[in-house]
């Protein structure tokens, strides 16, 4: 188990490093922050002083080396916009996104397992075809449009839900979560249904039935456990993809999370904040991948043995 984990950590760390380096270089290519932060009337001396103060006059390799040196000491630089520490800004924004994502995935997985299993229990029944059509539609709706429709119907016309912000009771959560939820939920229902149909026609299900196990036990105890693997893979990919949704949702609903912070810092050429935000996202995805691999190994003994020591 330890060998398995060590191998997975090493192989998952390579993308992490590449992403951090890539964003550093790409961010430098997006344009010179000196032009954005100093007035047009600034003298060349002022420009040079601003560059030197923030290290932009150094060759890119030197900048990269300095940056890596600072990251190791957990110093992510300062925001050009506010002068605040980039690390602090990112850590402040992170919980808002994390809460949003965690609640969304929890609802999506539980709901999809229930509805997908129900659909798979009687393939081609009315319930199956209805849920298939609805889940396909859910997976195909553009999230930003769904959010706007939510605002139009529940915010503007009915006036029962707030259209933006995080201040207030549980009702501020409804629209952002519904928007984030719709795509993962639609995809997961289809995946659960597919793998449950296969699992329910397997011989071990017949055995379980013939020894007198109750139907809920057959479906959730025997079939579901074996149908979990593809669901886990897709749920992992969808969680990574949730960052896409978070950018859109946080922009529309004014949710002070990491997606909004990233878009804002790109627009403002705020390199330090962008890099810190991307680094944190990449680390989160890295941890998530490790967790998924551990789940695989816990669920399926073959995975543990497949990796030679």
């Amino acid at each position, binding site marked *: 188990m330890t060998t398995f984990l060590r191998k997975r950590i090493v192989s998952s760390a390579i993308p992490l490093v590449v*992403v951090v380096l890539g964003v550093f270089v790409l961010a430098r290519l997006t344009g010179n922050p000196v032009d954005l932060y100093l007035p047009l009337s600034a003298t060349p001396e002022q420009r040079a002083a601003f560059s030197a103060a923030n290290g932009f006059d150094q060759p890119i390799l030197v900048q990269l080396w300095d940056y890596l040196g600072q990251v190791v000491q957990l110093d992510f630089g300062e925001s050009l916009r506010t002068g605040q520490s980039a690390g602090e800004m990112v850590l402040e924004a992170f919980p808002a996104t994390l809460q949003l994502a965690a609640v969304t995935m929890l609802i999506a997985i539980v709901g999809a397992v229930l509805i997908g299993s129900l659909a798979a229990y009687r393939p081609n029944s009315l319930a199956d075809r209805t849920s298939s059509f609805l889940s396909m539609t859910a997976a195909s709706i*553009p999230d*930003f449009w769904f959010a706007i429709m939510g605002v139009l119907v529940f915010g503007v016309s009915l006036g029962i839900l707030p259209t933006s912000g995080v201040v207030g009771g549980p009702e501020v959560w409804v629209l952002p979560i519904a928007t984030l939820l719709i795509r993962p939920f639609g995809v997961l229902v289809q995946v659960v249904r597919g793998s449950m149909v296969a699992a329910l026609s397997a011989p071990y299900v017949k055995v379980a039935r013939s020894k007198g196990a109750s139907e809920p036990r057959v479906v959730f105890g025997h079939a579901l456990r074996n149908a979990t693997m593809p669901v886990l893979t897709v749920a992992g990919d969808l969680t990574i993809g949730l960052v*896409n949704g978070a950018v859109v949702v946080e922009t529309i609903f004014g949710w002070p999370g990491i997606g909004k912070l990233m*878009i804002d810092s*790109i627009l403002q050429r705020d390199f330090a904040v962008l890099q810190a935000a991307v680094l944190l996202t990449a680390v989160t995805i890295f941890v998530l991948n490790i967790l998924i691999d551990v789940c695989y190994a816990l669920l399926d003994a073959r995975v543990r043995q497949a990796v030679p020591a």
Partner: protein
Amino acid sequence: MTATLDKPDGSKDGKKNKGVPAVASRPPRWWLLLGRDTMAAVAAVVLGLVLLTALIGPLLLGDAAVRQDLSASLRPPSFDHGITGLLGTDILGRSVLARLVEAAGTTLSVAIPAVLCSLFIGSAVGMWAGFHGGRRENIAMRVADVILSFPSLLLAVVVLYVFEPSVANIVLILAVARIPIYLRTARAEAAELKSRLFVDAARTFGTTSWATIYRHILPIALPTLLTVATLDFCFVMLTESSLSFLGIGIQPPDVSWGLMVAQGRQFLQTAWWIAVLPGVAIVITTVSATILAAWVRLATDPAQRWRLTLPKNKRGKRTPEVSA
């Protein structure tokens, strides 16, 4: 499509269809299979209409998409103003219908090249990696992991700020972001096929590796790859409209469905049709593509295709899983 399928599938199909005398041993033509599945047929017709609209619509409507008429500003949908006024007008008095047609062309001219590029490159590299195995496979899969482990929208945002957001750049970034999907699928197929007897035979005769991949591996992997591509068409369309919505995709004066939603957002309370209708267009197109993808998956899988050849009312009862 069917031509490449005939050979590998023929025998299996015959066996599966033992109890169904109506089906000949050779697989039925694909349009007959499509006719059997009402939902998929409707989806295919809708997609065809969207394509046709994008191709000939702008010719019929002329400059209606850009013609401004401030006296007709924010006119709601009605039958009173001819075909261009059917779906209302925006703040500048431009016809929403004409703009929707124009945007269909832009949206498809991003989505189709992006899907074709990633399908071609991803499949070629994936089959090459899976066929050779070893170090080449490892490197290709690591690259795929790197691309996949980064949220595609964020990648697009960063890259589109470096280079200007033109149609070509959007196609490029969407293609790169989706290559790993095909790469993984193609690699898995090729890795499984490379130890088959007919591939060994080809190798023994001294066939070059690319010829073996093209002649012996591609025909078997193609149905799976096409299914993935149909499904991916949806994803690419949605990403393009998200980018345009966020203001870093298609730029005015060009128009895409996502951009139209963004432009209509500020008039949500006064003129709902500007933001609602482009979204409906996106949903109709993507849902059709998803339904068609589900059908392609069934129709290209020899073990499942028989379901489509059954008379409709019996289909449910013939399905083995229902025995419970």
